[in-house]
């Protein structure tokens, strides 16, 4: 995705009418190298202790996310809290099946998050299509379209399962293995091709900064 | 109704305003100083037996000149207003003008000359007897009126009338200037010898002026009458 001098080649943004291309940034995603080991470890710890989630609640799984805020489950004590804008969130929780229509929004939201960013696929539908596996307009596997860090299976998983999943995510982050952002940048063409194969009315830039 | 009340009030108000004049001045007993001066000096100053004429033509001759001008302006105005074109009458003669009666036609034939002569008499004797240029001119115009009544289709020669009017007017002004240059002031009739009081040829240029006025007024009134007939070009 870069020319010989290492300068990124602008994205074609062919989904946009020519007149609108100037409204969107056309820079491709980049991979970001981690900092020095000790610094990165510290940062990863901080990242794991401050999980700000962007809930994508179009499926039934979203209903299981809410109880986490309640006194009974109290996710705050783990440094987890909801955040209303992708810009400030680090964890993208996809709460249930994604249809062709919502996939577009998922991609856009994911791309708008600042790295490092983590994705939690919640429930069977996001993992393998679940009960909608033969539906004409749902996505079977979300990880074909964006990199997923943690899968929480179940139909639906209980809040306890969610908490377990977040703990797992924390572990992965601290281990420095949650590099979904770089993965996405590296395999950007594949992901994009997958996305575009499903989304027919593509009217976004190729990468949503 | 409101209007009538207002009209009544207006007229009543005017009457009230007139009242002190009617009451406060009463019937005069004797002429004032100015009138006395006129009565005593006029014959001597201008040799005119008719003091009124002396005042009209000389002392207040400027008024009279103005008065001629008024009549002149009115004639011009009437003439300008009442042209065929403006009245919307085409070239065609109005078809059914009632013919004059035999009596009128005959009397006109008899009277015209007499009237003109009478008019001339009046203005020529303006400095001696009651009357003068205006009165004479009016009498002359009456003759023309008779003619117009008798022969409605007849046309006055507008050109001649106008020329008479212009020339006599100019001559009047000329007499005024003559007074200024040859005598003691504008419109001073003493450019000619004053003559003996009471004779026809007396009072300086007063008879001349009155004659000019007579001609002019005659022409002007005729012109007005003609114009009111409504078939002026």
């Amino acid at each position: 995705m870069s020319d010989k001098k290492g300068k990124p080649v602008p994205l074609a943004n062919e989904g946009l009418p020519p007149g609108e291309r100037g409204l969107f940034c056309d820079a491709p995603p980049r991979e970001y190298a981690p900092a020095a080991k000790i610094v990165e470890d510290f940062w990863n710890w901080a990242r794991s202790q401050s999980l700000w989630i962007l809930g994508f609640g179009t499926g039934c799984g979203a209903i299981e996310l809410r109880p986490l805020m309640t006194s009974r489950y109290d996710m705050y004590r783990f440094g987890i809290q909801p955040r209303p804008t992708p810009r400030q969130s680090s964890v993208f929780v996809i709460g249930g099946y994604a249809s062709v229509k919502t996939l577009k929004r998922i991609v856009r939201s994911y791309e708008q998050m600042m790295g490092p960013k983590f994705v939690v696929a919640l429930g069977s539908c996001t993992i393998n299509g679940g009960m909608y596996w033969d539906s004409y307009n749902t996505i079977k596997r979300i990880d074909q379209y964006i990199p997923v860090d943690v899968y929480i299976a179940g139909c639906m998983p209980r809040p306890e399962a969610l908490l377990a999943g977040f703990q797992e995510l924390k572990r992965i982050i601290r281990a420095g293995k949650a590099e979904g952002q770089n993965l996405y940048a590296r395999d950007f063409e594949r992901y994009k091709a997958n996305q575009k194969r499903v989304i027919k009315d593509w009217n976004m830039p190729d990468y949503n900064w | 109704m409101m209007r009538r009340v207002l009209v009544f009030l207006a007229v009543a108000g005017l009457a009230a305003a007139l009242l002190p004049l009617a009451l406060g001045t009463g019937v005069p007993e004797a002429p004032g100083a100015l009138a006395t001066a006129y009565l005593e000096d006029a014959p001597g100053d201008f040799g005119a037996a008719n003091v009124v004429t002396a005042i009209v033509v000389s002392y207040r001759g400027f008024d009279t000149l103005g008065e001629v001008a008024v009549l002149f302006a009115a004639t011009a105005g009437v003439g300008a207003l009442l042209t065929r074109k403006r009245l919307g009458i085409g070239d065609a003669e109005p078809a059914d003008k009632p013919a004059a009666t035999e009596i009128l036609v005959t009397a006109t034939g008899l009277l015209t000359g007499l009237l003109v002569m009478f008019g001339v008499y009046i203005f020529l004797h303006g400095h001696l007897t009651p009357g003068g240029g205006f009165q004479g001119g009016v009498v002359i115009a009456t003759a023309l009126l008779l003619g117009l009544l008798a022969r409605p289709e007849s046309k006055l020669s507008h050109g001649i009338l106008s020329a008479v009017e212009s020339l006599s007017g100019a001559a009047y002004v000329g007499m005024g200037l003559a007074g200024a240059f040859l005598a003691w002031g504008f419109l001073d009739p003493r450019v000619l010898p004053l003559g003996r009081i009471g004779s026809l040829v007396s009072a300086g240029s007063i008879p001349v002026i009155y004659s000019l006025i007579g001609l002019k007024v005659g022409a002007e009134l005729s012109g007005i009458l003609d114009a009111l007939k409504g078939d002026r070009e």
Partner: protein
Amino acid sequence: METGILVRVGYALVSLFVITNYGLLLIGSMARISAKVQGRVGQPVWQPYIDIVKSTAKRNSIGHGVMFYLGPVFRLAGGVGTYMFIPAVYGSVLFRNFSDSGDLLLVMYFIFFGQLGMALGASEGGHPYSAIGVSRGLAQMTAFEVPFALSVIAVAIQYRTLDITAIVAAQQGGFWNWTVATNPLAVAAALIAFLGMSMHNPFSIVIAPQEIPIGPPTEYQSNLLGMLQTNRAIFNGAKLVLYMNLYFGGATDVVTMVVKTFLIYFINVFVGQAFPRFRVDQSIRFFLGVPTLIGIASVIIAAI
């Protein structure tokens, strides 16, 4: 003056360090107290630190333009500057800050410095929600400033000065010399205004997370967000110190300051937990109603 400028800068940095940490801890502990009220365990007290570190450690960021970047700088400078113009601890050289730059009026107006810059930065983000948030925030601000101004005027009348140090000095000598005792109405008006100023419930419409996600900072992320979070701590601290100085007798040492400001803030949070949210027009009318009357009453009392 007598102190060298470098020393003063050094003192100021120390003072700033203290207030930053204090502010962060204050936020953390308040969040924890809120959690207790709701029957939760709540986040760790040091969670604000972690959040800031995390934000700063973001690997990439986006920017909409120069003003977008400068917004948080203005904001943080506004917070720090406000604090710098307030003498934090009465009689302390260390915590005198740069309060000789100006009196109470300077502080009151410098508060706008950060808000204005932030508003501009948020605007350049181009997000309509930012502008909506700003419009709500400014609108609300004009309203809560009225009781606050009245209360400040009452204080100025009472102590015949606008010099904060002098105001604190006048309140020394026990509780009954504090403004809260001598002119409680002024304090009441000011505390109500404080609710609006710190955008706690019921006056949190500006950042209404559900309808206009988080308001002005919608587009802010990573380091820029970290600066905003830092500012929140410092700015909160500064305002609390100001309130303490004006109404609660100031502080002669850091401990007193901590206790007093904690209590002031606690009142705030306590109210916030108990009320739902006002719409903007409602909150404007609220502030211009009873609190303003209280403020006028306080001025009258002070003037008599």
